[in-house]
C-alpha cells in the first residue's frame, strides 16, 4: 500500500493485459482451454488429493504405471515389474533415456527420492498417508531398478502407483523446495505459468521421450459457478468443461457444436448411517431407510439419467465389483413393516449432515422417506464445517445429534480395498478414517484383511463378493447411485476420454480448425 508506484502499476497492469490478450486469442487451434470446477491446490502431486488438481498435473508428470483406456494397468516410467512369492517385495525396471523437464536424469535414485519424501512424516505431504500405510522402504538396486518393500502383501500395489500422488517428481526441484509452485516431471507437457487467479499454462515438452502430443499448449481455467461452465462451452470460450453438472446436459445435447463425454463413474454416493446413535443402532431401521429409497427416481431426476442405482458399496469400475450383489428394491410397505417391527410404529426422525451442493439430493430423500413415515432433518453445512462434523467421534455426533452424513467416495486405484477398507473397517471408524457411521462387523474386518493381501485375483474376487453381501445386509449405508462422469467438449476436439472419477485423459487429444 505504501508503494508510490501503485497507481502506475494499475495502469501497467491494464496495458499489459490488453497486450497479452493478443497472445492468448480465442480459437487458437494449437491450444486447448479447459475449464474445471475448482482451482488447482498445489503443483506438488504428493501435496494434494483433489481430482481436478490431478487433471492439471497429469500432463506434466508421469508415474511408474498407468491405466490404459480399458482400465488395465500398463507400464509407463517402469517397463516391467515382478513380485516375490510372499507378495511383499516389488521390483520395478525403469525406462532409460528419460529426463525431467529441468534436465535432471530420471533414474532409480529419482524414484527413491520421490517416494522417500512421501514416507517422511515430518514433511506431512497431504497425499502421503496411503503410501505410508503400505510401503516400508524403497531402495535403488541399480540405476534402472527400484525395489519397494511393503509392510504386508498388497496385490493392488501397481494400481496404487498409477495414481496422481505417485507421480515421480524431479529430485532437484524437490530439493529447491519449489515444487508446490513449479511442477517438474517427465510428462509430455512442461509448465509455463500459474497465474493464481486466472490460469495454468502448459506447453508441449520438446524433450519428451514418448509420442509428442498433437496439441501444443494446454490452458487450465476454473470457476466455482456451474452456470459459467455452461456459458463457457456454449460460447466456445472453453474447449472442454469438466465436470458438467447434469442439469446442463439437456441444453447441450442438442447443440451440434458441443459433444458430451461420458465416463463410467468411479464414485458411489451414499448416506453413512450412525450405528452408535438411536434409532439407527437397530439394523431394521437402517434397512427400512434403504427400502424407502427410490434409487431409480433419484437417477432419473437428479442425474438426468446419467448414472445407475447403486447395488453395491463398490462402483462398477472397481476391481471386485459384483453385479449380482443384492441391493435394496424400492418397497415402502416393507420399510414401514421393518420400522414397526423395530418398535417405531409412528415413524422415526433422522438427521443428515450434508453440504450445500448436495442439498437437492437430501431434499429428494426427505420427500421419499416421508412416505414411509421417516422424517429427515437436513443439517446443511459449508464444506469445511461439514468435514469437521462428518469426521466427528461417536460422542461428538451424539451431542450434535447427527444420525447420518451424506458423502461420496471413489478409490483412485479402482480397487475394492481402496473403496471398502476406509469406509467399512472397524479401524477406519471416524475420526481415524471415513467410516463415518462407526460401523463394525468382525466378520467383515477379517474378510477385508484377507482381501487386501490375497495375491490370487480369482480368490480376491470371491472374498470381496462376500464382503459386499455383508455390508449390504448390515445396511451400513443408504446406497444411492453411481453417477457417470460428464464433461462437455467442443465438437472439433477429439480423442479425449474420462477416467472413472473425473480424470480427463488428454494424451490422444486433437483439435481441428
Amino acid at each position, binding site marked *: *500500500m505504501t508503494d508510490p508506484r*501503485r497507481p502506475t*502499476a*494499475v495502469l501497467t*497492469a*491494464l496495458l499489459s*493485459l490488453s497486450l*497479452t*490478450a493478443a497472445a*492468448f486469442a*480465442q480459437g487458437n487451434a494449437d491450444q486447448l482451454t479447459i*475449464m474445471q470446477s*475448482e*482451482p*488447482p*491446490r*498445489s*503443483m506438488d502431486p504428493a501435496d494434494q*488429493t*483433489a481430482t481436478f488438481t490431478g487433471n492439471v498435473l497429469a500432463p506434466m508428470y508421469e508415474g511408474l504405471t498407468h491405466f490404459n483406456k480399458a482400465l488395465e494397468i500398463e507400464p509407463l516410467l517402469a517397463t516391467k515389474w515382478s513380485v516375490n512369492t510372499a507378495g511383499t517385495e516389488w521390483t520395478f525396471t525403469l525406462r532409460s533415456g528419460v529426463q525431467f523437464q529441468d534436465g535432471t536424469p530420471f533414474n532409480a535414485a529419482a524414484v527413491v527420492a520421490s517416494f522417500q519424501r512421501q514416507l517422511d*512424516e515430518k514433511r*506431512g505431504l*497431504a*497425499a*502421503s*498417508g496411503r503410501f*505410508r500405510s503400505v510401503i516400508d522402504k524403497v531402495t535403488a538396486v541399480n540405476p534402472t531398478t527400484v525395489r519397494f518393500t511393503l509392510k504386508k502383501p498388497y496385490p493392488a500395489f501397481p494400481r496404487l502407483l498409477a495414481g496422481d500422488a505417485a507421480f515421480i517428481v524431479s529430485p532437484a526441484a524437490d530439493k529447491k523446495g519449489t515444487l*508446490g509452485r513449479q511442477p517438474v516431471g517427465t510428462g509430455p507437457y512442461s509448465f509455463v505459468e*500459474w497465474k*493464481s*487467479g*486466472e*490460469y495454468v499454462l502448459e506447453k508441449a515438452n520438446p524433450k519428451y521421450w514418448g509420442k509428442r502430443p498433437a496439441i501444443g499448449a494446454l490452458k487450465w*481455467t*476454473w*470457476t*466455482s*459457478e456451474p*452456470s*459459467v461452465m455452461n*456459458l*463457457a462451452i*456454449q*460460447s466456445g*470460450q472453453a474447449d472442454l468443461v469438466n465436470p458438467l453438472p447434469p442439469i446442463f446436459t439437456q441444453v447441450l445435447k442438442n447443440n451440434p457444436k458441443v459433444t458430451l463425454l461420458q465416463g463410467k463413474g468411479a464414485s458411489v454416493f451414499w448416506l453413512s448411517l450412525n450405528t452408535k446413535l438411536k434409532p439407527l443402532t437397530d439394523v431394521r431401521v437402517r434397512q427400512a431407510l434403504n427400502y424407502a429409497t427410490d434409487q431409480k427416481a433419484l437417477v432419473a431426476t437428479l442425474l438426468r439419467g446419467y448414472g445407475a442405482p447403486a447395488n453395491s458399496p463398490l462402483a462398477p469400475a472397481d476391481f471386485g465389483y459384483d453385479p449380482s450383489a443384492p441391493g435394496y428394491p424400492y418397497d415402502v410397505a416393507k420399510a414401514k413393516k421393518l420400522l414397526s417391527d423395530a418398535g417405531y410404529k409412528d415413524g422415526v426422525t433422522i438427521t443428515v449432515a450434508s453440504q450445500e451442493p448436495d442439498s437437492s439430493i437430501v431434499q429428494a430423500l426427505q420427500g421419499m422417506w416421508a412416505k414411509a413415515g421417516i422424517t429427515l432433518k437436513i443439517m446443511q453445512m*459449508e*464444506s*469445511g*464445517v*461439514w*468435514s*469437521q462434523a462428518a*469426521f466427528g467421534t461417536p460422542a461428538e455426533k451424539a451431542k450434535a445429534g447427527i444420525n447420518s452424513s451424506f458423502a461420496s*467416495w471413489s478409490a483412485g486405484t479402482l480397487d475394492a480395498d481402496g473403496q471398502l477398507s*476406509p469406509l467399512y473397517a472397524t479401524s*477406519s471408524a471416524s*475420526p*481415524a*478414517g*471415513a467410516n463415518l457411521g462407526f460401523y463394525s462387523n468382525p466378520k467383515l474386518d477379517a474378510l477385508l484383511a484377507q482381501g487386501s493381501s490375497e495375491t490370487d485375483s480369482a480368490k480376491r474376487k470371491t472374498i470381496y463378493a462376500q464382503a459386499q453381501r455383508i455390508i449390504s445386509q448390515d445396511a451400513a449405508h443408504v446406497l444411492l447411485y453411481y453417477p457417470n462422469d460428464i464433461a462437455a467438449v467442443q465438437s472439433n476436439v477429439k480423442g479425449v476420454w474420462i477416467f472413472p472419477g473425473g480424470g480427463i485423459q488428454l494424451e490422444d487429444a486433437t483439435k481441428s480448425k
Partner: protein
Amino acid sequence: MTTYLFRKVAMLPIMLLAVSLLIFSAVRLLPGDPARVMAGPQATQEAVNDMHERLGLGRPFLVQYQVFLSGALRGDLGESLHSKLPVTQDIAERLPYTAALALTSYLFAMLVGLSTGIFAAIYRGSLFDHLAMILAIIGASIANFWLALMALTLFSVDLGWLPLLGAESWKSYILPSVTLGVLPAALIARMTRASMLENIHQDFVRTARAKGLGSRAVYLRHTLRNALIPIVTIVGLNFGGLLGGAVITETVFNWPGIGRLLVDAVRFRDYAVIQGVTLLTVVIVVSINVLVDLLLSAIDPRIRFS
C-alpha cells in the same frame, strides 16, 4: 487542518491493531479444520494430525497471533497453503485487477449516475426524470449475481461480442465494470437528483441567476458543487459495498482479483490468505473514508471546524 488530518491518521495504527486481532480471532473461530480440508476427505486421522503439526495449528492462540503480528509488522503475512506464495505476493498479483475493476466501475457509476441525476433534477417531473428514477430503483435493488449471469448470456454467449473469462483484454472490463457499477450508479443518480433539487431553490442559486449567469454555470458551478457533499459521502461509504460486490462479480466473471482470492481462501480454509485479504480490505476502506473526509473539507471548508 493539520490537527484534523493528524487525528485521523494517528487513529489508524490503533484501529488496525484492534482490527487485526478481531480478524485473527474470527478466522480461528471459522468452523472447519484447515488440516482436514488440505489433507482431503480421504485422509486418515494420522495424516490430518501430521498436517496440523506442519501448519503450526497446534500452538496456543496467543502464540499464533504473536507470530502473525510480528510477521505482519515486517510486511510478512505468511504463506498461502495453496498457491505456496507469500500472501503479500499473492495479494500484489491480484490487487491491480480489483483496483482496475473498482476504477472502471466507479468511472461508469459516476458518469451515468451524475449525468442522470443532474438531468433528472433539471427536468424534474419529465418523462426522462420518471424513467431514470424507475431505472435507479431497479438498479439499486437488482441482484448483482443475476445481472452478471444475464449480461454474460446476452453479450458473451448469444451475441458473442464480449469475452466470458478472465481479464485478458480491455473488452473483458466492460461486463464486470457495468455489473459492479450499476448499484453505485443508481445510488449516485438518486442522491444527485435529490441534492440538486435541494440546492436549486437556495438563495445563492437565485443570486447567481440574478447576476446573469448562464444555466450551465448555474447548474454546474454553483448548484452541483454544493450538491456534491452528500454525493461524495455516499460514494465513499459505498466503497466497502463495492468491494463486497466485487467478491460476487469476480467469482462470476472469473476475475483474478482479491475478491475471488478471498472466496477460494475461505473455501480451502487458507487462514493466512483470509487474514491478509481482510486486513487489506479494512485498510483500503478506512483509507478511503479518511480520503473522503479530507475531500469533503476541501469542498466545504465549514466541515473542518465541526
